Protein backbone atom coordinates (compact mmCIF):
# COMPACT_ATOMS: atom_id res chain seq x y z
CA UNK A 1 0.00 0.00 0.00
CA UNK A 2 2.92 2.36 -0.51
CA UNK A 3 2.17 5.59 -2.29
CA UNK A 4 3.84 8.81 -3.33
CA UNK A 5 2.23 12.00 -4.58
CA UNK A 6 3.48 13.14 -7.97
CA UNK A 7 4.85 16.47 -6.73
CA UNK A 8 6.70 14.74 -3.88
CA UNK A 9 8.21 12.25 -6.32
CA UNK A 10 9.23 15.01 -8.76
CA UNK A 11 10.94 16.91 -5.91
CA UNK A 12 12.96 13.81 -5.09
CA UNK A 13 13.84 13.21 -8.75
CA UNK A 14 14.89 16.85 -9.05
CA UNK A 15 17.28 16.24 -6.16
CA UNK A 16 18.75 13.46 -8.34
CA UNK A 17 17.60 10.45 -6.37
CA UNK A 18 15.02 7.70 -6.17
CA UNK A 19 12.72 7.66 -3.14
CA UNK A 20 15.13 5.26 -1.45
CA UNK A 21 18.06 7.64 -1.94
CA UNK A 22 20.03 5.94 -4.73
CA UNK A 23 21.02 7.82 -7.91
CA UNK A 24 18.51 7.78 -10.78
CA UNK A 25 20.66 5.58 -13.04
CA UNK A 26 21.50 3.02 -10.33
CA UNK A 27 19.87 -0.33 -9.64
CA UNK A 28 18.85 -1.60 -6.24
CA UNK A 29 21.15 -4.34 -4.83
CA UNK A 30 21.13 -7.29 -7.23
CA UNK A 31 21.82 -10.95 -6.49
CA UNK A 32 21.85 -13.59 -9.20
CA UNK A 33 22.02 -17.26 -8.21
CA UNK A 34 22.36 -19.84 -10.98
CA UNK A 35 21.67 -23.59 -11.05
CA UNK A 36 18.88 -23.38 -8.50
CA UNK A 37 16.73 -26.05 -10.17
CA UNK A 38 17.57 -29.74 -10.28
CA UNK A 39 15.35 -30.62 -13.22
CA UNK A 40 15.90 -27.64 -15.50
CA UNK A 41 18.86 -27.67 -17.91
CA UNK A 42 19.67 -24.15 -16.78
CA UNK A 43 18.19 -21.90 -14.13
CA UNK A 44 18.67 -18.62 -12.30
CA UNK A 45 17.05 -16.62 -9.57
CA UNK A 46 17.34 -12.85 -9.73
CA UNK A 47 16.62 -10.57 -6.79
CA UNK A 48 16.62 -6.83 -7.49
CA UNK A 49 15.64 -5.00 -4.32
CA UNK A 50 12.33 -6.61 -3.43
CA UNK A 51 11.69 -7.90 -6.95
CA UNK A 52 12.33 -11.62 -7.18
CA UNK A 53 12.10 -13.80 -10.31
CA UNK A 54 13.00 -17.39 -11.15
CA UNK A 55 14.04 -18.45 -14.66
CA UNK A 56 14.31 -21.97 -15.99
CA UNK A 57 15.69 -23.20 -19.32
CA UNK A 58 14.34 -26.47 -20.68
CA UNK A 59 15.71 -28.26 -23.76
CA UNK A 60 13.76 -30.64 -25.97
CA UNK A 61 14.17 -32.20 -29.40
CA UNK A 62 11.42 -31.08 -31.73
CA UNK A 63 10.65 -30.63 -35.40
CA UNK A 64 11.88 -27.24 -36.71
CA UNK A 65 9.49 -24.66 -38.07
CA UNK A 66 9.01 -25.15 -41.84
CA UNK A 67 10.52 -21.73 -42.68
CA UNK A 68 13.69 -22.36 -40.62
CA UNK A 69 14.50 -26.06 -41.19
CA UNK A 70 18.15 -25.65 -40.14
CA UNK A 71 17.64 -23.61 -36.97
CA UNK A 72 16.70 -24.44 -33.42
CA UNK A 73 13.56 -23.09 -31.79
CA UNK A 74 13.40 -20.46 -29.05
CA UNK A 75 10.41 -19.87 -26.81
CA UNK A 76 10.06 -17.45 -23.93
CA UNK A 77 7.16 -17.68 -21.54
CA UNK A 78 6.43 -15.44 -18.57
CA UNK A 79 4.11 -16.33 -15.75
CA UNK A 80 3.10 -13.49 -13.46
CA UNK A 81 2.02 -15.41 -10.39
CA UNK A 82 -0.99 -13.97 -8.51
CA UNK A 83 0.93 -14.17 -5.22
CA UNK A 84 3.73 -11.97 -6.57
CA UNK A 85 1.66 -8.80 -6.89
CA UNK A 86 -1.95 -7.82 -6.05
CA UNK A 87 -2.62 -6.71 -9.63
CA UNK A 88 -1.94 -10.17 -11.11
CA UNK A 89 -4.82 -12.61 -11.53
CA UNK A 90 -4.80 -16.37 -12.17
CA UNK A 91 -5.64 -17.54 -15.66
CA UNK A 92 -4.12 -17.25 -19.14
CA UNK A 93 -1.25 -14.74 -19.59
CA UNK A 94 -2.43 -11.14 -19.69
CA UNK A 95 -1.12 -8.20 -21.65
CA UNK A 96 1.71 -7.49 -19.21
CA UNK A 97 2.98 -11.09 -19.13
CA UNK A 98 2.92 -11.29 -22.93
CA UNK A 99 4.81 -8.01 -23.21
CA UNK A 100 7.58 -9.05 -20.80
CA UNK A 101 7.92 -12.40 -22.58
CA UNK A 102 8.11 -10.80 -26.03
CA UNK A 103 10.60 -8.11 -24.99
CA UNK A 104 12.93 -10.67 -23.37
CA UNK A 105 12.50 -12.96 -26.39
CA UNK A 106 13.25 -10.15 -28.84
CA UNK A 107 16.49 -9.20 -27.08
CA UNK A 108 17.75 -12.80 -27.09
CA UNK A 109 16.57 -13.55 -30.64
CA UNK A 110 17.59 -10.36 -32.42
CA UNK A 111 20.80 -9.92 -30.44
CA UNK A 112 21.92 -13.36 -31.61
CA UNK A 113 22.35 -14.76 -28.11
CA UNK A 114 22.02 -18.29 -29.47
CA UNK A 115 23.69 -19.70 -32.59
CA UNK A 116 20.44 -21.18 -33.82
CA UNK A 117 22.19 -23.20 -36.59
CA UNK A 118 24.20 -25.11 -33.99
CA UNK A 119 20.95 -26.21 -32.35
CA UNK A 120 20.09 -28.19 -35.46
CA UNK A 121 20.54 -31.95 -35.22
CA UNK A 122 19.07 -33.02 -38.56
CA UNK A 123 17.80 -30.26 -40.91
CA UNK A 124 14.03 -30.27 -41.33
CA UNK A 125 13.66 -33.16 -38.92
CA UNK A 126 15.25 -32.62 -35.51
CA UNK A 127 16.38 -29.48 -33.75
CA UNK A 128 16.84 -28.46 -30.13
CA UNK A 129 14.05 -26.34 -28.73
CA UNK A 130 15.16 -23.86 -26.07
CA UNK A 131 12.31 -22.96 -23.72
CA UNK A 132 12.84 -20.15 -21.26
CA UNK A 133 10.26 -19.97 -18.48
CA UNK A 134 10.19 -16.90 -16.29
CA UNK A 135 8.19 -17.07 -13.09
CA UNK A 136 7.72 -14.21 -10.64
CA UNK A 137 8.08 -14.66 -6.89
CA UNK A 138 7.58 -10.98 -6.05
CA UNK A 139 7.15 -8.01 -8.36
CA UNK A 140 8.16 -4.64 -6.93
CA UNK A 141 9.29 -2.64 -9.94
CA UNK A 142 11.86 -3.23 -12.68
CA UNK A 143 10.38 -6.53 -13.83
CA UNK A 144 11.62 -6.57 -17.45
CA UNK A 145 15.27 -5.97 -16.50
CA UNK A 146 15.17 -8.66 -13.81
CA UNK A 147 13.52 -11.14 -16.21
CA UNK A 148 16.05 -10.38 -18.97
CA UNK A 149 19.00 -10.71 -16.59
CA UNK A 150 17.65 -14.03 -15.30
CA UNK A 151 17.03 -15.36 -18.81
CA UNK A 152 20.61 -14.57 -19.91
CA UNK A 153 22.16 -15.99 -16.72
CA UNK A 154 20.11 -19.18 -17.07
CA UNK A 155 21.09 -19.57 -20.76
CA UNK A 156 24.79 -19.10 -19.95
CA UNK A 157 24.63 -21.80 -17.30
CA UNK A 158 22.58 -24.34 -19.29
CA UNK A 159 23.98 -27.77 -20.15
CA UNK A 160 22.70 -30.18 -22.81
CA UNK A 161 21.27 -33.50 -21.64
CA UNK A 162 22.28 -36.72 -23.38
CA UNK A 163 20.08 -37.99 -26.20
CA UNK A 164 19.80 -40.99 -28.49
CA UNK A 165 18.06 -40.10 -31.72
CA UNK A 166 14.99 -38.10 -30.63
CA UNK A 167 14.82 -39.45 -27.08
CA UNK A 168 16.31 -37.10 -24.51
CA UNK A 169 17.75 -38.56 -21.31
CA UNK A 170 17.07 -35.75 -18.89
CA UNK A 171 18.65 -37.69 -16.02
CA UNK A 172 22.06 -37.63 -17.75
CA UNK A 173 23.51 -34.19 -18.35
CA UNK A 174 26.57 -33.56 -20.51
CA UNK A 175 29.09 -30.77 -19.92
CA UNK A 176 28.23 -29.24 -23.29
CA UNK A 177 26.94 -25.70 -23.04
CA UNK A 178 24.47 -23.90 -25.26
CA UNK A 179 26.01 -22.24 -28.35
CA UNK A 180 26.06 -18.67 -27.00
CA UNK A 181 26.68 -15.82 -29.43
CA UNK A 182 26.27 -12.40 -27.86
CA UNK A 183 24.99 -11.58 -24.39
CA UNK A 184 22.08 -9.14 -24.70
CA UNK A 185 20.53 -7.57 -21.60
CA UNK A 186 17.39 -5.42 -21.58
CA UNK A 187 17.66 -2.12 -19.71
CA UNK A 188 14.43 -0.21 -19.19
CA UNK A 189 14.70 3.56 -18.84
CA UNK A 190 11.64 5.27 -17.35
CA UNK A 191 10.53 8.82 -17.95
CA UNK A 192 8.60 10.63 -15.22
CA UNK A 193 8.07 14.33 -15.81
CA UNK A 194 11.39 15.57 -17.24
CA UNK A 195 13.45 12.93 -15.48
CA UNK A 196 14.93 9.62 -16.61
CA UNK A 197 15.72 6.66 -14.39
CA UNK A 198 16.21 2.90 -14.25
CA UNK A 199 14.78 0.38 -11.79
CA UNK A 200 11.90 2.36 -10.25
CA UNK A 201 10.23 1.42 -7.00
CA UNK A 202 6.59 0.28 -7.39
CA UNK A 203 5.25 3.60 -6.11
CA UNK A 204 7.47 5.43 -8.62
CA UNK A 205 6.43 3.12 -11.46
CA UNK A 206 2.79 4.14 -10.83
CA UNK A 207 3.68 7.65 -12.06
CA UNK A 208 5.42 6.47 -15.24
CA UNK A 209 4.88 8.65 -18.30
CA UNK A 210 6.87 6.54 -20.74
CA UNK A 211 9.44 3.78 -20.75
CA UNK A 212 11.92 2.51 -23.28
CA UNK A 213 13.42 -0.95 -23.00
CA UNK A 214 16.75 -1.16 -24.80
CA UNK A 215 18.44 -4.53 -25.22
CA UNK A 216 22.21 -4.10 -25.32
CA UNK A 217 24.94 -6.69 -26.01
CA UNK A 218 28.30 -6.82 -24.25
CA UNK A 219 29.76 -4.87 -27.22
CA UNK A 220 27.33 -1.99 -26.53
CA UNK A 221 25.29 -2.90 -29.61
CA UNK A 222 21.60 -2.14 -29.41
CA UNK A 223 19.61 -5.12 -30.62
CA UNK A 224 15.99 -4.51 -29.59
CA UNK A 225 13.68 -1.72 -28.46
CA UNK A 226 10.30 -1.54 -26.84
CA UNK A 227 8.42 1.64 -25.99
CA UNK A 228 5.72 1.66 -23.33
CA UNK A 229 3.52 4.22 -21.60
CA UNK A 230 1.01 6.66 -23.00
CA UNK A 231 3.24 9.74 -23.51
CA UNK A 232 5.26 10.04 -26.74
CA UNK A 233 9.04 10.43 -26.64
CA UNK A 234 10.97 13.18 -28.44
CA UNK A 235 14.11 12.39 -30.41
CA UNK A 236 16.29 14.00 -27.71
CA UNK A 237 14.52 11.90 -25.06
CA UNK A 238 15.45 8.70 -26.86
CA UNK A 239 19.08 9.84 -27.26
CA UNK A 240 19.32 10.50 -23.56
CA UNK A 241 17.59 7.26 -22.61
CA UNK A 242 19.97 5.24 -24.80
CA UNK A 243 22.92 6.97 -23.13
CA UNK A 244 21.62 6.08 -19.66
CA UNK A 245 20.83 2.51 -20.74
CA UNK A 246 24.35 1.94 -22.12
CA UNK A 247 25.87 3.08 -18.85
CA UNK A 248 23.47 1.14 -16.63
CA UNK A 249 23.85 -2.03 -18.71
CA UNK A 250 27.50 -2.26 -17.60
CA UNK A 251 26.41 -2.17 -13.97
CA UNK A 252 23.71 -4.76 -14.63
CA UNK A 253 26.08 -7.07 -16.53
CA UNK A 254 28.52 -7.31 -13.61
CA UNK A 255 25.90 -9.33 -11.71
CA UNK A 256 25.97 -12.36 -14.02
CA UNK A 257 27.86 -15.15 -12.23
CA UNK A 258 30.88 -16.42 -14.10
CA UNK A 259 30.48 -19.73 -15.94
CA UNK A 260 32.17 -22.71 -14.35
Amino acid at each position, binding site marked *: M*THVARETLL*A*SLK*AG*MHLDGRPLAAYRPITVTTDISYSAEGSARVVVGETDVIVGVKLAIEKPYPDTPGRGNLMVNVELRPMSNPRFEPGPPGEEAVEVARVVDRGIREGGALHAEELCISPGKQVWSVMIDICTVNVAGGLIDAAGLGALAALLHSKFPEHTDDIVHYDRRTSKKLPIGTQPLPVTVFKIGDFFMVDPLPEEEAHMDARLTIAITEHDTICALQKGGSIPLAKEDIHQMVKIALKSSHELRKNIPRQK
Partner: protein
Amino acid sequence: MAKPEDVLVVKDKSVVVPGEALATGMGYIPGTGTYRDGESVQAGRLGLASIDGKVIKLIPLSGKYLPKLNDRVIGKVIDVLLTGWRIEMNCPYSSVLTLKDATTEFVARGADLTQYFALGDWVVAKIVNVTSQKLIDVSMKGPGLRKLQGGRVIVVNPQKVPRIIGKEGSMVSLIKDATGCNIVVGQNGLVWMDGEPQAQLKVVETIRKIEDESHLTGLTDRISAFLQKKGA
Protein backbone atom coordinates in the same frame (compact mmCIF):
# COMPACT_ATOMS: atom_id res chain seq x y z
CA MET B 1 -9.68 -16.06 42.43
CA ALA B 2 -7.17 -18.55 41.10
CA LYS B 3 -7.95 -21.97 42.51
CA PRO B 4 -5.32 -24.63 43.38
CA GLU B 5 -6.20 -26.63 40.27
CA ASP B 6 -5.43 -23.59 38.08
CA VAL B 7 -1.87 -23.76 36.75
CA LEU B 8 0.15 -21.20 34.80
CA VAL B 9 2.12 -22.99 32.09
CA VAL B 10 4.25 -20.12 30.80
CA LYS B 11 6.22 -17.36 32.49
CA ASP B 12 5.39 -13.70 32.08
CA LYS B 13 7.04 -12.11 28.95
CA SER B 14 7.94 -15.46 27.41
CA VAL B 15 7.64 -15.99 23.66
CA VAL B 16 4.68 -18.18 22.72
CA VAL B 17 3.50 -19.66 19.44
CA PRO B 18 -0.09 -20.15 18.20
CA GLY B 19 -1.79 -23.12 19.88
CA GLU B 20 0.59 -23.17 22.84
CA ALA B 21 -1.13 -23.68 26.20
CA LEU B 22 -0.60 -20.69 28.48
CA ALA B 23 -2.55 -21.83 31.55
CA THR B 24 -5.05 -24.50 32.60
CA GLY B 25 -8.12 -24.15 34.76
CA MET B 26 -11.19 -21.93 34.69
CA GLY B 27 -9.54 -19.49 37.10
CA TYR B 28 -7.58 -17.87 34.27
CA ILE B 29 -9.33 -15.64 31.77
CA PRO B 30 -8.25 -15.35 28.11
CA GLY B 31 -7.44 -11.75 27.09
CA THR B 32 -6.61 -10.30 23.65
CA GLY B 33 -4.75 -12.65 21.34
CA THR B 34 -5.62 -15.75 23.38
CA TYR B 35 -8.60 -18.12 23.48
CA ARG B 36 -10.09 -20.80 25.69
CA ASP B 37 -10.06 -24.42 24.57
CA GLY B 38 -11.82 -26.52 27.19
CA GLU B 39 -9.91 -26.16 30.42
CA SER B 40 -6.88 -24.37 28.99
CA VAL B 41 -6.08 -20.88 27.73
CA GLN B 42 -4.09 -20.92 24.49
CA ALA B 43 -2.11 -18.48 22.40
CA GLY B 44 -3.79 -17.32 19.19
CA ARG B 45 -0.68 -15.86 17.55
CA LEU B 46 3.06 -15.41 17.86
CA GLY B 47 3.95 -13.00 20.65
CA LEU B 48 4.89 -12.39 24.27
CA ALA B 49 2.64 -13.73 27.01
CA SER B 50 1.58 -11.05 29.46
CA ILE B 51 0.07 -12.18 32.77
CA ASP B 52 -2.01 -9.58 34.51
CA GLY B 53 -3.53 -11.19 37.63
CA LYS B 54 -5.89 -13.84 36.35
CA VAL B 55 -6.16 -12.34 32.87
CA ILE B 56 -3.71 -13.68 30.30
CA LYS B 57 -2.98 -11.39 27.38
CA LEU B 58 -0.67 -11.67 24.42
CA ILE B 59 1.48 -8.92 22.93
CA PRO B 60 1.77 -9.83 19.24
CA LEU B 61 5.19 -9.63 17.55
CA SER B 62 3.94 -9.83 13.98
CA GLY B 63 0.80 -9.90 11.91
CA LYS B 64 -1.61 -7.70 10.04
CA TYR B 65 -3.46 -4.80 11.58
CA LEU B 66 -6.79 -5.65 13.18
CA PRO B 67 -9.20 -2.71 13.40
CA LYS B 68 -9.94 -1.35 16.87
CA LEU B 69 -12.42 1.30 17.99
CA ASN B 70 -11.03 4.85 18.20
CA ASP B 71 -7.84 4.03 16.30
CA ARG B 72 -6.51 6.77 14.07
CA VAL B 73 -5.75 5.18 10.70
CA ILE B 74 -4.47 6.19 7.28
CA GLY B 75 -6.39 4.91 4.29
CA LYS B 76 -6.97 5.23 0.57
CA VAL B 77 -10.31 5.89 -1.14
CA ILE B 78 -10.97 2.84 -3.32
CA ASP B 79 -14.63 3.41 -4.21
CA VAL B 80 -17.18 6.20 -4.23
CA LEU B 81 -20.52 4.85 -2.98
CA LEU B 82 -24.02 6.32 -3.19
CA THR B 83 -23.74 7.96 0.24
CA GLY B 84 -20.10 7.69 1.16
CA TRP B 85 -16.71 6.25 0.35
CA ARG B 86 -14.98 2.91 0.76
CA ILE B 87 -11.57 3.18 2.39
CA GLU B 88 -8.77 0.63 2.15
CA MET B 89 -6.45 0.66 5.15
CA ASN B 90 -3.80 -2.08 4.97
CA CYS B 91 -5.95 -4.68 6.71
CA PRO B 92 -8.13 -7.63 5.70
CA TYR B 93 -11.32 -5.56 5.91
CA SER B 94 -12.16 -2.32 4.14
CA SER B 95 -14.10 0.42 5.88
CA VAL B 96 -16.85 2.86 4.97
CA LEU B 97 -16.81 6.61 5.44
CA THR B 98 -20.40 7.82 5.40
CA LEU B 99 -21.43 11.30 4.30
CA LYS B 100 -22.53 12.37 7.76
CA ASP B 101 -19.12 11.43 9.17
CA ALA B 102 -17.23 13.08 6.32
CA THR B 103 -18.42 16.67 6.24
CA THR B 104 -20.62 19.14 8.10
CA GLU B 105 -21.57 20.79 4.82
CA PHE B 106 -25.02 20.31 3.31
CA VAL B 107 -24.76 17.86 0.46
CA ALA B 108 -27.64 17.85 -2.01
CA ARG B 109 -29.14 14.56 -3.15
CA GLY B 110 -27.25 13.22 -6.14
CA ALA B 111 -24.30 15.58 -5.69
CA ASP B 112 -20.91 14.54 -7.06
CA LEU B 113 -19.12 13.09 -4.03
CA THR B 114 -15.72 13.15 -5.70
CA GLN B 115 -15.47 16.88 -4.93
CA TYR B 116 -14.97 15.88 -1.28
CA PHE B 117 -12.96 12.70 -1.68
CA ALA B 118 -11.98 11.28 -5.05
CA LEU B 119 -10.74 7.83 -6.00
CA GLY B 120 -7.12 7.40 -4.90
CA ASP B 121 -7.20 10.18 -2.30
CA TRP B 122 -5.46 9.47 1.00
CA VAL B 123 -7.07 10.36 4.31
CA VAL B 124 -6.37 10.14 8.01
CA ALA B 125 -9.56 9.02 9.77
CA LYS B 126 -10.79 7.57 13.03
CA ILE B 127 -12.52 4.22 13.47
CA VAL B 128 -15.94 4.86 15.04
CA ASN B 129 -17.52 1.43 14.79
CA VAL B 130 -16.35 -2.16 14.37
CA THR B 131 -19.02 -4.86 14.25
CA SER B 132 -18.50 -8.52 15.14
CA GLN B 133 -18.60 -9.18 11.39
CA LYS B 134 -15.80 -6.64 10.94
CA LEU B 135 -17.87 -4.05 9.14
CA ILE B 136 -15.94 -0.89 9.90
CA ASP B 137 -17.08 2.73 9.95
CA VAL B 138 -14.59 5.58 9.95
CA SER B 139 -15.11 9.28 10.55
CA MET B 140 -13.36 12.48 9.53
CA LYS B 141 -14.70 14.41 12.51
CA GLY B 142 -12.01 15.06 15.09
CA PRO B 143 -8.77 16.96 15.57
CA GLY B 144 -6.18 16.29 12.90
CA LEU B 145 -8.45 14.16 10.72
CA ARG B 146 -8.16 15.32 7.13
CA LYS B 147 -7.35 14.57 3.55
CA LEU B 148 -3.60 14.08 3.05
CA GLN B 149 -2.26 16.32 0.29
CA GLY B 150 1.01 15.37 -1.39
CA GLY B 151 3.72 13.53 0.51
CA ARG B 152 4.27 9.80 0.56
CA VAL B 153 3.02 6.77 2.46
CA ILE B 154 5.18 3.87 3.64
CA VAL B 155 4.20 0.57 5.25
CA VAL B 156 5.55 -0.45 8.66
CA ASN B 157 4.87 -3.40 10.94
CA PRO B 158 1.56 -2.46 12.69
CA GLN B 159 2.81 -4.07 15.93
CA LYS B 160 5.70 -1.58 16.05
CA VAL B 161 3.48 1.48 15.69
CA PRO B 162 3.43 2.23 19.47
CA ARG B 163 7.26 2.29 19.35
CA ILE B 164 7.30 4.69 16.40
CA ILE B 165 4.87 7.00 18.17
CA GLY B 166 6.60 6.70 21.56
CA LYS B 167 5.28 7.68 24.94
CA GLU B 168 2.69 10.42 24.34
CA GLY B 169 4.10 10.93 20.87
CA SER B 170 7.66 11.58 22.08
CA MET B 171 9.39 9.51 19.41
CA VAL B 172 7.49 10.91 16.46
CA SER B 173 8.00 14.50 17.65
CA LEU B 174 11.71 13.74 18.06
CA ILE B 175 11.82 12.74 14.39
CA LYS B 176 9.66 15.68 13.33
CA ASP B 177 11.91 18.18 15.13
CA ALA B 178 15.12 16.64 13.80
CA THR B 179 14.03 16.44 10.17
CA GLY B 180 11.46 19.21 9.80
CA CYS B 181 9.12 16.73 8.14
CA ASN B 182 5.38 16.53 8.61
CA ILE B 183 4.54 13.02 9.83
CA VAL B 184 1.27 11.19 10.52
CA VAL B 185 1.46 7.67 11.96
CA GLY B 186 -1.66 5.53 11.50
CA GLN B 187 -2.36 2.71 13.94
CA ASN B 188 -2.81 0.47 10.90
CA GLY B 189 0.89 0.55 10.02
CA LEU B 190 0.80 3.24 7.37
CA VAL B 191 2.99 6.30 7.88
CA TRP B 192 2.45 9.46 5.85
CA MET B 193 5.15 12.09 5.58
CA ASP B 194 5.94 15.24 3.65
CA GLY B 195 9.04 17.43 3.54
CA GLU B 196 12.35 17.92 1.73
CA PRO B 197 13.46 14.79 -0.20
CA GLN B 198 16.61 14.35 1.91
CA ALA B 199 14.67 14.85 5.13
CA GLN B 200 12.06 12.28 4.06
CA LEU B 201 14.83 9.81 3.45
CA LYS B 202 16.06 10.37 7.01
CA VAL B 203 12.55 9.78 8.36
CA VAL B 204 12.29 6.46 6.50
CA GLU B 205 15.73 5.34 7.69
CA THR B 206 14.89 6.28 11.29
CA ILE B 207 11.57 4.43 11.20
CA ARG B 208 13.24 1.31 9.79
CA LYS B 209 15.80 1.51 12.60
CA ILE B 210 13.02 1.77 15.19
CA GLU B 211 11.32 -1.28 13.66
CA ASP B 212 14.58 -3.24 13.81
CA GLU B 213 15.60 -2.25 17.33
CA SER B 214 12.26 -1.75 19.08
CA HIS B 215 12.91 -4.67 21.46
CA LEU B 216 16.22 -3.24 22.75
CA THR B 217 16.51 -0.93 25.75
CA GLY B 218 17.30 2.77 25.48
CA LEU B 219 15.54 3.11 22.14
CA THR B 220 14.91 6.85 22.46
CA ASP B 221 18.59 7.64 23.22
CA ARG B 222 19.68 5.39 20.40
CA ILE B 223 17.35 7.09 17.93
CA SER B 224 18.28 10.65 18.96
CA ALA B 225 21.97 9.73 18.61
CA PHE B 226 21.21 8.26 15.17
CA LEU B 227 19.42 11.42 14.09
CA GLN B 228 22.29 13.57 15.36
CA LYS B 229 24.82 11.47 13.46
CA LYS B 230 22.72 11.86 10.33
CA GLY B 231 23.20 15.60 10.77
CA ALA B 232 19.50 16.29 10.94
